[in-house]
Structure formats: C-alpha cells, structure tokens
C-alpha cells in the first residue's frame, strides 16, 4: 500500500510539474506574441504606422474569408450553369435589368443601369414621363463591364424638370428583353 501511495504521489508530482510548465510556457508565449517578440509568428494585422508589405503568412480570418469567396464563386457558377442549361432556348428570355443609381449633379440627371449579362449587343430605350407633361426618350448602346453590362447613358438635361417623373428602361436584344421602372423626384 505504501509503495502504491508513493507511485501515486510521484505521478501527481509529474502531472503538476508538466501542467505548471505548460501554463508558464503559454503565459510566456502569449506575452511574447502580444508584444510582437516572436519573429516567426508575426501578428497578421498590418501595422498602419508604416506601409511595408506583409510577407507573413495569411491570418486565419484571411484564409477563412478566401475559402468563403471560393465557395461562393463555385456555387454561383454551378447555379448559373444549371439555370442556363434548363432554359428553353426557343422561349423569350427575360434579362434582369436594374437601375443602379439616379443622381442629380448640377443640371443633369445621371442614370446608371446594370444588365445581368456580359454583352455589347442590343440597345436600351429610356422613357421618362411626367403625367400631363412632356416625355423624354433616349436610346443608347450597351457596354459590357466586369460583372454586368450597362446602358451607355443616360445623362439628361433637367432644367425645368422639377417634380415627380416615371422612368422606364427597356433592354432589347432580339428575343432577350428586360424592363425596369422607377419613380423619382427631380429637384
């Protein structure tokens, strides 16, 4: 019994010793890390006091975000390919067109659009109407951008245009068509 007790005590001492060393080491490592004293383990957040390039390994956040970007891109491509192959090619295809921005700068109204295809084909017809008043119409070409296409316009002189207006924009390219309307107030 005594011998067994001695063995237990020595085991316990070893456990306590190892745990103490581990705890002390962790405290030490933590202190060095927080004070940037570990040359091989630089903190990933860039020091904004200088503009040097960060040649350290990517942080876990950066890797995780990169993985999410990769996953999202892959999923989008898969989804779009499936949708595209299942579309009836003989039917009229609807294209999503959006008004990204309507901006009044000085005497001009600038309308930014996005067409959810990459194309320079077709045209955009914009009609701006005010009930009981004039109608303004413009037709412009289409320009491909990085991840969408845009109607190459519209900049409309708005002198004397104050009040509520309805904007309608139609994208048309053969049997591909898209349509968007929006109501705006011109100051």
């Amino acid at each position, binding site marked *: 019994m005594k011998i067994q007790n001695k063995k237990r005590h020595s085991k316990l001492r070893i456990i306590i010793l190892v745990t103490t060393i581990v705890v002390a080491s962790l405290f030490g490592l933590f202190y060095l890390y927080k004070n940037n004293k570990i040359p091989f383990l630089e903190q990933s957040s860039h020091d904004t006091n200088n503009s040097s390039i960060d040649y350290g390994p990517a942080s876990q956040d950066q890797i995780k975000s990169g993985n999410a970007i990769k996953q999202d891109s892959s999923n989008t491509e898969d989804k779009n390919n499936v949708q595209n192959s299942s579309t009836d090619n003989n039917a009229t295809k609807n294209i999503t067109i959006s008004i990204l921005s309507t901006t009044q700068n000085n005497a001009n109204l600038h309308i930014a659009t*996005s067409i959810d295809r990459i194309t320079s084909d077709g045209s955009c017809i914009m009609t701006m109407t005010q009930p009981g008043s004039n109608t303004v119409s413009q037709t412009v070409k289409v320009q491909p951008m990085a991840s969408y296409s845009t109607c190459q316009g519209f900049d409309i002189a708005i002198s004397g245009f104050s009040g509520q207006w309805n904007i309608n924009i139609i994208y048309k390219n053969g049997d591909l068509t898209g349509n968007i309307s929006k109501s705006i107030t011109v100051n």
Partner: protein
Amino acid sequence: MNKNKYILTTLSIILGLLIQNVSLTLNVSAIQVQGWDAGYIIADGIFTDNRSMNVAQIQAFLDSKVPVCDNWGTNGSTPTSRRDYVLSKGYALPMTCLKEYTENGLTAAQIIYDVSQQYQINPQVLIVLLQKEQGLVTDDWPTEQQYRSATGYGCPDTAPCDSQYYGLTNQINWSAHMFRAILNNSPTWWSPYVLGNNNIQWSPNASCGSSVVNIQNRSTQALYDYTPYQPNQSALNAGYGTGDSCSAYGNRNFYLYFTGWFGSTRGDYCLSSLNDTSTGIDFKKIQKSSPDAGEFMIYSGSSTSCVEFHTWSQGLANWQNHTASNSSNINLTDSSIQYADLNGDGKDEAILIGLKGTASGKIEFHIWNDDLRSWKDHYISNAATIDPTVSQVSFADLDGDGKDEGILTSLTSSVSGSGNIEMHVWNQGFGSWKDHYISNAATIDPTVSQVSFADLDGDGKDEGILIALASTVSGSGNIEMHIWNPGFGSWRTHYITNQLAKSVPIPPQL
C-alpha cells in the same frame, strides 16, 4: 484522492481559462472594419502606383501566403475529400497554387507585374483583386475554374461567365484595362458611377436599399464600376466575416485585404519615415472666428506619392488629422501651396499654384475642397508662368472686403522697367488685372530680403511688408520690417526687430 482531484480540477480550470482568454483576445483583434470611407476607398496615388512591387517581391508575397501547396488535395477534412471534390467537378490533378502557376511560360507574378506596368495600376491592387474575387492568393488547392475567372471579369451574378474573358492573363488584363479607362475618364468607356453623389445599393437585391455616396476620386469610381455595391453596417461589423442577407462584400474585402497586406489605402499614417522629403509648415483658418491651425505639409517623398497635409490640434503637440490629397508629389521649384480665403467665407482654401512648366503655359490655380481630396475650382490665369526666383505669387486682402486677392510680385526685375518692386493684383478668377502698383522700393535679392503681407494694425486690410532678412537696410544688423502704406508708394512704419539678421536662414517660400 479528493485532494489530488481538487488540485487537478483547479489546474484544468486555470488552463482552460487561459486558453479561452488567449483565443478571445486573438479573435477580438479581427472584428470590425476600421477606417472604411465609402466615398474614398483608395487614393489615386496608391491605386496607380505601379512601382510598389517588382516581380521578385510579388513572387515572395505569393510564396508567403501559401507556404505549402496541397497539389494532390490530400489535406482536406479527409485525405480524399478535396481530391474527390475536384475530380467530381471534372477538373484535373495536380492543382497548382498561384505562387507556382504559369501561363504561356510566364509565372503569375510576372503576369501581374507586366499588366501593372502596361496599365499603370498598382500590382497590389491586382493581387487583392485575385483574392477578393476567387480567394486565389490564400488558396492552397485552387481549381481550374478559379483561374479561368480569376478576377471575376465577365461573370454576372445570375448568368454563366463569358468564355471570351477566360484565363488568368486575360482576366487580369481586362480588369486593369477597365480600371485604366475609368481613371482616364475615357470617352470610349462609359462609367455608370460618376464623381460626386451617387446612390449605391447595399446588395444586388434592390429591396435592401441604398445610400448616397460622394465618390471622391477616380479609383473609388473604378472600384464601384467593377463591383457596384457598398458594404452595409452588418458587413462592416463582421470584419472578414459574414453580415446579413443584405450584405455585399466585394469592396469591403478589397479594402480589408489591401490594408491587411499593404497598409493604408489612403496613406494617412506615413509620418514614420520622412527621409528625403520636401516639407513645409503653414497656418490656415479652418473656421471663422477660430484660431488658425498649423499644418505640416509633405510636398514630395511621401509614402503615398501624394501631397500630404498633417494638421496639428491646438497646442501643436498632437495631430488632429492626416490627409493624403488627390494631388501627386509636386516639385517646389515649379509649384507652391498656399492658403487663402478666396470666397470670403472666413475659411482658408488650400491652393496649389502652378508657377512654372504648366500645361497651359500660364500661372495656374487649383483650389482644393475642404477635404483636400477633390478639386473645387481650377483657374488658368492671364499671366505667363514665372521663374519663382524672380517673382512670387501671394494672397492678401488689400481692399478689406474679406476676400484675399492674388498678387504677382516682381522681386528681382520689374515688369514695367521701373527698376522697383512691382505688385500686380488679380481680379477674382485670376483672368484679369485689378490693379498694378510700382512700389517705392528697389528690386531685391530674394535670398536676402522677401515681401510678405499681413494685417498688422487689425483694420481688416493686409499691409505689404518688405522684410530684410540677411542684410539690413539701416545697418542695425538685425532683421528689419518695412511696412508699406496702401498703394506701396510710401512707407508707413519701419521696425528693427530683436533678431540678429545673420543667424536667420531664409525659409523656402511655401
């Protein structure tokens, strides 16, 4: 036994708490996006700095981000999970990481560098683009699809990518081409967004709404043309993480990765290295009825390649703000920066003055907006460019109307042949002359004397002051100030200061 258990349990709790504390501290540092400015994502000077990295530096950077490439896809959750996924997609093995990828015999680093030089785009911008669109920089098992659409060019949200844009070189090339077109305000490349106010949506889902963003420079305009959404608060609160259903991440991730890897996108913190810079100090009135603020200016040699303004708070002991302007470095022999209240609103405008070598061949005045990042006005004057060692341009309110007038002062040789110092005062807009004055003082050597303007008597009108710095008129040996009467034809007062003339180095004109 109970005692032993108690000791072990206590040690376990301490260890557990310690590990949790370390982990919490590390996580906290990653939360939230700091310094995001939707209207000014990156300075033009940084966006177009094509000298920021050479090929070897780009290669070293790519190497550092993926130390070991998982070419055979064995490092997933199981030894075959990545490999199975890749093969199920119909992609080939082995996979190639960006650091070792080649196309047409060129490494990715070389391709990035070559395109950056061709379009004068910062290679760091292109590196970040590869990361924000496909995660290629940090990915240790990238697929063919990621290289095919490496910068997301030609890939709409709801339709398949356009194959005419496929390939790493092609992708980077098209992206840089588009950026350059927007930066140049190319008439053949229509930009959906414009400088100034724009409504920018939070996400492709229009029902999520939008807010007005004042786009302040071409680089920010180019980024929104590329990715037409801004991050909402939820996306910004999430750091690199996920926000809510109305969050878009493209421009946030561009900002986060750029600042994380290459430093400030606006160069707001570059005072740590001021070697080989041209600098100056001036004072400006920021608000009516408030003390003038001291401003430390870096004309050239700044890390941002832009003229920088660093404003002291009152007491001059701390910084109030730092601004990298929209103007690239200037040469002080050709240009100067001054402050003047041109519109009489009680606040000084910063003015970049082109004295010599201007495109128009005339003296030019470029007035900054308050933010120093965009221009309020540009004026081409009626006066031909000057030699700054012969003449000077100053601002003073000579007539006391609350607005400063521009004054061209002939110092070493007179325009009319009078042999005296002459003052030629511009009308507002600098297109015509308001007054011409031939002073009573002979022309001077600007290394010995200088002409300045200030309201010394507090009557609301600035007086002209001839300052004898290095050689005195009266023989006193001290710096002397000779104050002109209005019209510069006679002296009002003469002062001999308490400062020895010889010990004073003549400061460069601001």
